[in-house]
């Protein structure tokens, strides 16, 4: 039987505030254990949490960008459970009355556009960290660091609208791109500032009744989200086909083993006994506030992409690549403003520039070749001073040593040879030096002309103007053939 997967994602994004959600402790990553705590985030008796306004603003920005209906009134709730990373015995979250609901995000998939529903967005506090590694790997205790307790998180829950692991990965890419554009999250999955859990089930293709789902955790990259889902879908199909039943459980992705496994000894079924948190008064968001937020939003990747296609006349694919990262998009527009042709700029950036940036793990913002300098390289090619091939080497030199295109060309004597007589001379030499190949050409092997082009380029160390070489060589060979 053919099966279809049903996937919904729960994403936790750490919000880029300086202080925690309910107290003034720093959110800075990597501090000495337990140096960023206070009575509020330690859950001491008698303290009162007070909501960080910026957390609400960031969550609202996201809610507006994801086309959500924002609740006029929302309420924080206590989610009760005992675990040592949570000193109060409950996590402050939202339950019955989240900040926003009913949004959507549009994906561009191979088969066309697809809208994925956003069920809800709410704010909550992060829990602390249990350390079992390093010197504590074999200890009989867990070591608790509460620096992260109270760091603001935003949870974004999707509808079960995703039907394949690639769709889930694309959803994550789109969502990440939007969050980074909005400036609300740094989007770093490796460091855990963007986390993703997935609910996945399988059902016979065409069915409308979802199967029993498993919840997958511990996937810290786009690739792992996709791999974990791929593995889990195959696993569930096998269970069903062998007459078994999928059980509802939480499974952890093991990156090294490349598989998911059930979490052992997971205590009782979750019974969180949510209740409205009496310490925090309700949050009211009026139309004015939403209007201000709407005004302050940047141009988001989807819209920017559409504009790039129209304004710069580049293919959709190129526009998609260039707008996925805000810095890259800004760089592109700066290169064009500095005088480069859009198609050239987009090709060059997607090829040479992005390769070098990726290799050096740099972002467009700290690219050693500034947009104006890249446009300078374009001008040299445009006026025929260097060939495109040589330009690639010039670019590498610019990237590595921070020199301008003109400087590299001057220092290395790379200026293109466009002198008719010089090129003619090199062609004559090439023909004279290779009588065997000439004979082959004259006996009808037209392809041999390519060999002579190669010879001339070699002689000129790549500097001969290729168009001129082609043209003059064709004439010379033609003459020889006719004179035969």
């Amino acid at each position, binding site marked *: 039987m053919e099966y279809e997967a049903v996937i919904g994602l729960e994403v936790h994004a750490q919000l880029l505030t300086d*202080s925690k959600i309910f107290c003034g402790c720093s959110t800075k990553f990597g501090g000495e254990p*337990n140096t960023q705590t206070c009575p509020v985030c*330690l859950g001491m008796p008698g303290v009162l949490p007070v909501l960080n306004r*910026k957390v609400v603003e960031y969550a609202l920005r996201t809610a507006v960008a994801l086309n959500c209906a924002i609740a006029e009134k929302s309420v924080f709730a206590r989610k009760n459970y005992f675990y040592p990373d949570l000193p109060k015995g409950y996590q402050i979250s939202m339950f019955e009355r989240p900040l926003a609901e009913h949004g959507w995000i549009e994906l561009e998939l191979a088969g066309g556009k697809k809208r994925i529903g956003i069920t809800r967005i709410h704010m909550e506090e992060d829990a602390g960290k249990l350390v079992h590694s390093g010197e504590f790997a074999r200890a009989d205790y867990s070591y608790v660091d509460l620096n992260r307790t109270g760091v603001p998180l935003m949870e974004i829950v999707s509808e079960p609208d995703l039907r394949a692991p690639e769709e889930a990965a694309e959803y994550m890419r789109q969502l990440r791109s939007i969050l980074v554009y909005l400036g609300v999250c740094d989007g770093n999955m490796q460091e855990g500032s963007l986390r993703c859990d997935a609910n996945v089930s399988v059902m016979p293709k065409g069915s409308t009744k979802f199967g029993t789902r498993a919840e997958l955790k511990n996937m810290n990259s786009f690739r792992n989200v996709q791999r974990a889902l791929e593995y889990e879908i195959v696993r569930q199909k096998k269970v069903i086909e062998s007459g078994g039943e999928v059980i509802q459980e939480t499974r952890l992705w093991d990156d090294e083993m490349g598989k998911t496994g059930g979490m052992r000894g997971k205590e009782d079924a979750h019974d969180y006994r949510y209740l409205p948190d009496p310490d925090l008064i309700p949050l009211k968001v009026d139309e004015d506030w939403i209007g201000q937020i709407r005004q302050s939003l940047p141009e988001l990747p989807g819209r920017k992409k559409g504009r790039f296609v129209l304004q710069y006349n580049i293919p959709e694919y190129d526009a998609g690549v260039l707008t996925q990262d805000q810095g890259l998009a800004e760089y592109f527009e700066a290169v064009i403003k500095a005088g480069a042709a859009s198609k050239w700029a987009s090709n060059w950036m997607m090829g040479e520039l992005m390769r070098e940036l990726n290799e050096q793990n740099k972002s467009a913002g700290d690219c050693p070749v500034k947009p104006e300098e890249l446009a300078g390289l374009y001008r040299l090619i445009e006026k025929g001073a260097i060939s495109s091939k040589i330009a690639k080497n010039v670019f590498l030199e610019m990237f590595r040593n921070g020199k301008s295109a003109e400087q590299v060309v001057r220092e290395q004597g790379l200026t293109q040879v466009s002198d008719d007589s010089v090129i003619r001379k090199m062609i004559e030499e090439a023909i004279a030096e290779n009588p065997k190949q000439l004979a082959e050409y004259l006996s009808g092997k037209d392809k041999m002309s390519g060999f002579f082009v190669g010879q001339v380029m070699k002689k000129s160390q790549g500097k001969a103007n290729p168009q001129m070489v082609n043209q003059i060589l064709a004439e010379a060979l033609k003459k020889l053939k006719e004179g035969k």
Partner: protein
Amino acid sequence: MKISRKEVEYVAHLARLKLSEDEADKFTAQMGQILSYFEKLTELNTEGIEPTSHSVPMVNAFREDLVKPSLLVEDALANAPDKEGNFFKVPKIIE
């Protein structure tokens, strides 16, 4: 009975409370009485009334996003039943 002994034991477990046999019996009876008492409220007509989550009619108390000094580690750990170095120390938890 409004609540079974089993439910009382379940709730006690969620709250990590250990009840003796006698206590479980006693609390089952007491909680049953409390629930019966609260049941009176259902006699009221609450049609069209929004559930009350807070008794004070107030909304939106914010703080600005400013970092304030945290506690010294010694102070943060001062009341911990067990600690080591900068850490709180608890019985091993395996996820």
